């Protein structure tokens, strides 16, 4: 059964249409990626699904219609979003950031979940009293993911998790993403690093100018000549297709 279904979703900024009639579907425990160029509408799509942006269309999560559901409600139903800017509580410690990720839980529950997060991201444990604002880019990404995982989400949405990170860190992050999937967390991954995203994902969508222009199993799209040329290739001919 689908965990998340998006149908005919549109987002507009004033008269600018950022997302136009997008449909997508995520099965529980799978990784779905959305790839596309800067400005294709990927971030707007995630924000609309999380309820951060007003949108038209349907978002159904665990069988419930999400229209009129504020972000906080979607969060408590099991959706988490790690944004491109991470939105950490920069002047608070790593530990406090994680505590706030499970702010509705009792103390014992918080301690237990924090131990799980630290097991997954040992680096965070070493620095648990350090302020979030003093962390490096990779550590910030880990903390943002850790904070989201404190809520034990069923769907984790990641916006450009590899942004600005060195290749070795990117590898680590993608490793954790596939491990999370193996533990039953569904993941909606928005990436510019299309090659890495297609390797880790089960299913993929391509967005261009607010529209989904292609979709299919990730391995199949990775072999599609149009995808190779537009998103994977650094070589190839000078001609480009729209």
């Amino acid at each position, binding site marked *: 059964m689908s965990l998340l279904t998006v149908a005919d979703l549109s987002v507009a900024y004033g008269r600018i249409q950022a997302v136009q009639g997008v449909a997508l579907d995520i099965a529980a425990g799978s990784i779905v990626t959305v790839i596309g160029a800067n400005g294709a509408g990927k971030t707007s799509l995630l924000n609309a699904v999380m309820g951060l942006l007003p949108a038209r269309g349907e978002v159904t999560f665990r069988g419930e219609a999400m229209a*009129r559901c504020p972000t906080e409600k979607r*969060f408590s139903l099991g959706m988490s979003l790690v*944004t491109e800017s991470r939105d950490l*509580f*920069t002047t608070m410690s790593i530990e406090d950031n994680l505590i*706030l990720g499970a*702010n*509705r839980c009792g103390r014992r529950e918080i301690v237990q979940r924090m131990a799980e997060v630290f097991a997954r991201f040992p680096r965070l444990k070493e620095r648990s009293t350090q302020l979030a604002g003093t962390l490096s880019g990779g550590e910030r990404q880990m903390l943002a993911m850790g904070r989201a995982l404190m*809520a034990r989400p069923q769907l984790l949405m990641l916006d450009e998790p590899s942004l600005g990170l060195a290749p070795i860190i990117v590898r680590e992050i993608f490793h954790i993403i596939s491990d999370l999937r193996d533990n039953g967390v569904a993941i909606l991954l928005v990436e510019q690093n299309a090659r890495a995203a297609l390797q880790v994902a089960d299913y993929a969508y391509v967005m261009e100018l607010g529209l989904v222009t292609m979709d299919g199993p990730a391995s199949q799209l990775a072999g599609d000549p149009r995808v190779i040329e537009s998103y994977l290739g650094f070589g190839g001919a000078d001609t480009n297709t729209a």
Partner: protein
Amino acid sequence: MDATTLLLLGQDSLISGAIYALLAVTMVMVFSVTRVLFIPQGEFVTYGALTLAALEAGRVPGTAWLLLGVGAVAAVLAMTRARQTLTFLKAIRILIIDVGLPALLLLIVHWAAPLKLGLVPEMLLTLALVVPLGPLVYRIAFQPLAEASILVLLIVAVGVHMGMTGLGLVFFGPEGYQTSAFSDAVFELGFMNISAQSIWVVTTTAALLLGLYLFFEKTVSGKMLRAAAISRRGARLVGISTDRTGYLAFTLTALIGAVSGLMIGSLTTIYYDSGFIIGLKGFVAAILGGLHSYPLAAAAALLVGTVESFSSYSASAFKEVIVFTIIIPVLLWRSIFRPPVEHLE
């Protein structure tokens, strides 16, 4: 200026500085959590002082009626805003909380006021009447504008100030009142007198500041407020509702404002519009402290208190001019050391 005068002025500085510090700290908090520059903070001081004065005189304070009226307005607005999802039960719940409770309070006050129950129960009753106005004001004026710019929120805050001052006149009248002190005792310390009241004010302030500190550092609710202040979006992403943090911040503001009113009411005569200038001085301190730092705001408040006390001694006519112009050098400093183009990356 001899030593006695100096010590007297020092004591005076400390008392007014303490009150400005409370106001400044809550203003910084409200601003960072809700982005509202809450100009009407001083009105809660007035309401607190004048409500206590009425209770002391054995009268039903105007705030009891005002709370009922504001609650009714909030209830109507809440029901119209939620009209698409409103159920009978929800409507009943809104009515009980917004209208029922204030009505109950009004009945209690009607019974209790003539009995003159004494200072402490009257103070508690005052807080029960004034503090709920904080979250109600947030709901009526600011909640629908949660995404508006700081400037729009500031102008709305000024509108709320106008409304609250006007209502203050209606419900308290134009006369000024002074409440009785916690204590009339005076201690002699060497060659100067220290009133027990001033010790009360300073210790209460210190206790409140310490309480706020512990609340922000140690409790999850306090951390949620801090989180919302650092990143509103980050807070929403971990399920912290900005409406809830808004209520909480405004409740704290009203509480601290009303307590300041209880303290200041015995030190000076308070009129329906006195709170504005008191609040603005707290604001001057908050701005001097940069609007972000609690300790800096509190320290600046002591400075404001000192400047005020000493200028009222040496240039009494220009006391207010001096207090409000000390902000200018700070602003000047900011404008000189500003980067060529703001907010780039």
